[in-house]
């Protein structure tokens, strides 16, 4: 482990990679700050750039963008009450009231310090948990992977949907269906190509990610223009003092410690991620608060701001655990990163730790550097970066469209991809209008190939029998977990129904 860590330190601390982290954090903050554009879009826009550099640097850049985007989302939540990222919605509950009181600077500083602490504690956990989990998962075979992939797919559907489990499952299936387009890797048979040569290699992951996130989000911002314009107020360049008093630091310290641990473990769960972590941490702090403190929540409580901010950053680190050790993404964002890693020819999973230690360790180390960069460079620059929010939207939207289109074109040099992107953008807009979430789709698309491969292998190993599902204890355990996650929403909806009926009966 120490050798790997040294290798990671060496790679992450090279001047080139430090510059990549700084650049990533800066760009991520900028994009994350724009309402409607989240870390997935920010990372998707970066992918074409990372194709030209080595995998370690690429992953470091993307990790920086991820952190930056979450931080940027907090900034727009605090300054204009328009969270750029779902994970920072809870930040606006108390951050925006603080800004209204003229304490925007303090709120931003508190958000940055909390994020830093959350990220730091989580990075330490990651340092310990990832190699340990990797060693365990080395004993995994195809049936276990098949079960794990199923778990990942159902978990993200259970957690990531906008309140609708079935809708998320449908989106996962849509992603899985899209993944079958092209030549079947095992048999060489064409599937769903309709005689189109451009589809023989399947649909590129980058094309799907860009169209479903960057393009559709930019286009949706035009349709929803009125809605956002009504709620958005122009930010002021003067954010006030960035200083925190000793008493305030003392008050939030336990909150930060609790939320870091909570955030990390929620982030590790496949599908949970920063949004759930931030809401849980906010809820936990409100429940633990005294009656007097409780009254402050929603009106500018520093605890109410520190909790979600710490938790969402800790969850970001946590979501890297399943990605790096099992090759299963814990969130939509890490799903996009998984796709990027696979495009490099690197297979994330337990072997990553052994085959590509530089990638594995440098990503972990760079997370910590990312946190320092956010604190040291981004925080003082926030008043200036915030001016990005005043950039004319009509210019920004068209530029995002251009970078998305050319980003995909530069990888394939095929104009057909641009037509496909336009088509997928239309589909994505339709899906968004019908309240479908995009994260399960991208996860299904990325994991589809692996799911098929592992099921095929498992069946071959067991002579065409599905007995591997109950003969292998690890597979069985994971499948039981999957079934529980699948049943969880149904059980909770029944519980809710019974509760409602009881309330009605009482009335």
């Amino acid at each position, binding site marked *: 482990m120490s050798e790997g860590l040294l290798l990671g330190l060496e790679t992450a601390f090279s001047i080139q990679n430090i510059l990549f982290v700084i650049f990533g954090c800066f760009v991520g903050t900028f994009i994350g700050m724009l309402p409607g554009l989240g870390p997935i879009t920010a990372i998707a826009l970066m992918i074409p750039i990372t194709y*030209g550099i080595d995998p370690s640097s690429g992953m470091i850049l993307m990790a920086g963008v991820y952190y930056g985007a979450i931080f940027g989302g907090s900034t727009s939540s605090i300054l204009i009450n328009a969270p750029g990222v779902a994970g920072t919605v809870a930040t606006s509950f108390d951050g925006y009231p603080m800004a209204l009181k003229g304490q925007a600077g303090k709120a931003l500083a508190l958000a940055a310090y909390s994020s830093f602490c959350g990220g730091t504690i989580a990075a330490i956990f990651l340092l310990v948990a990832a190699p340990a989990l990797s060693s365990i998962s080395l004993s995994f075979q195809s049936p276990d992977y098949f079960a794990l992939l199923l778990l990942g797919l159902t978990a993200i559907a259970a957690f990531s949907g906008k309140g609708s489990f*079935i*809708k998320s*499952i*449908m989106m996962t*299936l*849509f992603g*899985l*269906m899209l993944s*079958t387009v092209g030549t*079947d890797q*095992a*048999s060489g*048979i*064409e*599937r*769903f190509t309709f005689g189109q040569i451009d589809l023989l290699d399947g649909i590129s992951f980058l094309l799907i990610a860009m169209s479903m996130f960057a*393009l559709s989000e930019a*286009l949706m911002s*035009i*349709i*929803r*223009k*009125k809605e956002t314009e009504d709620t958005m107020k122009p930010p002021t360049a003067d954010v006030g003092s960035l200083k925190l008093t000793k008493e305030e630091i003392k008050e939030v310290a336990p909150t930060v410690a609790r939320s870091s641990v909570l955030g990390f473990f929620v982030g590790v769960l496949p599908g949970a991620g920063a949004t759930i972590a931030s809401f849980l941490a906010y809820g936990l702090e409100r429940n633990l608060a005294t009656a007097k403190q409780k009254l402050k929540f929603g009106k500018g409580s520093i605890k109410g701001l520190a909790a979600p901010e710490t938790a969402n950053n800790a969850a970001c680190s946590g979501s890297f655990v399943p990605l790096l050790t099992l090759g299963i993404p814990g969130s939509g964002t890490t799903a996009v990163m998984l796709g990027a890693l696979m495009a490099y020819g690197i297979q994330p999973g337990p072997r990553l730790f052994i085959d590509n230690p530089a990638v594995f360790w440098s990503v972990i180390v760079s997370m910590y550097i990312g946190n320092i960069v956010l604190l040291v460079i981004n925080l003082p620059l926030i008043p200036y970066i915030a001016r990005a929010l005043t950039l*004319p*939207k*009509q*210019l920004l*939207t*068209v*530029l995002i*469209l*251009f970078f998305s*289109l*050319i980003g995909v*074109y*530069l990888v394939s*040099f095929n*104009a*057909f991809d*641009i*037509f496909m*992107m*336009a088509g997928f*953008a*239309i589909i994505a*807009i*339709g*899906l968004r*209008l*019908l*309240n*479908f979430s995009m994260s399960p789709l991208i996860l299904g698309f990325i994991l589809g190939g692996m*799911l*098929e491969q592992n*099921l*095929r292998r498992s*069946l*071959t190993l067991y002579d*065409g029998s599905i007995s591997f599902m109950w003969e292998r204890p690890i597979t069985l355990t994971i499948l039981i977990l999957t079934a529980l996650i699948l049943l969880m929403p149904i059980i909770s909806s029944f519980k809710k129904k019974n509760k409602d009926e009881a309330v009605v009966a009482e009335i």
Partner: protein
Amino acid sequence: MNISRDKLGALIFFIFSSCYGYYAFQIPLYPGEEYDVFTSQSMPKLYAISGMLFSALALVLSVIEDFRNTEDEQSNEKPFFDKKGWTQCASLIGLMVFYGATLEPFGFIPATIVFLNLGYLILGERRPKVLFIASVPVVIVFWAIMTQLLGIYLSTGELWS
């Protein structure tokens, strides 16, 4: 009957899954492969059936939900039509297709300058100075970074070469 977004989504997905399923059965197999446990058709068939099942379930659940809710609650859904926004959105999608069609024949620089300017115009930007600054220098700098610095080829235009 009032068609809510949930019902519409489920219905569209059901139709899509059915069509996908139809084509899944059309996937050719090698002779004798039909006796194999796992073929190229297996996963697509499984996805199609699951898609149809889940969308049918979603459809049924949303119908049940409609019976539970009063009419007032049902009509609470926000309308999602902002005519101007939609026209702009549709024009931009058309512009993307146009960009795809012109990029290789006309070359990166002219096609992109036209794309950016038309895009800004569609979204209401009319100031000539802003239109120029936000397109020509952006395209030239991008082209220079790509071709001169990173050595990436960008189409110079099939029509001119």
